[in-house]
């Protein structure tokens, strides 16, 4: 089965899902919050990548993104950005920490 996004295989949001599971939420509410987590992650990753690319390369990346050809996206990213995968992982981990913090604040 095709992954939803080109980065889906390198990120793990299960800790957030688990934490939301432990809260007294309806399944619909939980699904909505998870979709918001995914949306925030997506914007952070796109911002990271575009910030690392030149103007012409940004357009190439966006074209690949629109075509949803994940292999081409990774081939391109690996040729243009050093440690692209690690940078994406770190960006996501930083965001996840902030989202966990949000949950903690709201529960307290």
């Amino acid at each position, binding site marked *: 089965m095709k992954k939803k996004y080109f980065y889906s295989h390198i990120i793990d949001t299960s800790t957030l899902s688990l934490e939301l599971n432990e809260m007294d939420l309806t399944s619909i*509410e939980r699904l*909505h919050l998870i*979709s*918001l987590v995914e949306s925030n992650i997506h*914007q952070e990753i796109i*911002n990271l990548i*575009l910030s690392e690319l030149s103007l012409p390369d940004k357009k190439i990346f*966006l*074209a690949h993104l629109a075509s949803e050809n994940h292999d081409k996206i990774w081939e391109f990213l690996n040729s243009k950005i050093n440690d692209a995968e690690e940078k994406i992982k770190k960006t996501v981990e930083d965001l996840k920490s902030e989202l966990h913090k*949000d949950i903690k604040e709201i529960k307290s």
Partner: protein
Amino acid sequence: MTQSHYKSLSDRWRARHQNLTKNLWIKHGESLEWLANNYRQLISGSLGGLMILTGQISNTLPSAPIAATQPAIPNLDKKTFLISDLAQILPKDVRPLEAEEEQNICDILSRTYGIKVTPELEGKRLNRSYGFIGAEQHLIRYPGDNLSSHFDSDEDSELYWQQGMAPGLGAWSYFSPSKEASTQKDKDREKYYIAVPTFLSKDFNSRFAEYRDFYKYRKMLVVNPNNGRAIVADIADAGPAESTGKQLGGSPEVMHYLERFDGSLKGPVLYFFINDPDDKINLGPVTPI
């Protein structure tokens, strides 16, 4: 308990997403605009990956989660163009707009929504047309109106109960003299109201009666420039004070639709008069034509 936890998290994460989208457009607007102009030639499948363009996310609880997170194709380019066009004109700081900026923005909004908007009408204008919007409470519509009688449906009650009822009346007193006399128009005027600082208009004190009558239920188009959501609202209260750091206020329903929040998450909106002398334009959300 669940509702407050859910709502707090939902509000916070939606606001975070909007800020991310806004910053994306500020930093990479040229590339995103290029994508917006060419996406029809580029897309092969779903539009999921292109949510960066509109920043559109599900606003409330989804009935079908996947569909709710994907923008509708017909609206994608129009909202995208609107966000892009506005981002090129709006200043980075939320400050009063110059006359040329106002005119350019009014041209864009009038074209996008098919509604003629203007910063000045009949020689009258508010102190500004771009500012932070804060959350107002529900207004009492008629004698005896309270939270138990205020909502048309259980869904509305769940969404908007907690914002509470303002202790005083709106600037123009009740919307109708009694529950029996209350019409749909009266209901909508409360539901989609905004509060603006009428008292900061030029020569307000010396032209009080003139301004009072002009502003009463005057229609304005209120637009969140970060997500392209727009609503036809009416002026039904005066405020907020300058010391609040906010330039206008929105009813719970207006704030919810625009995806704007109060406090540290507050964000700006554009607001312009609608010239509708024959009262043909309905209050409520509007979409690009």
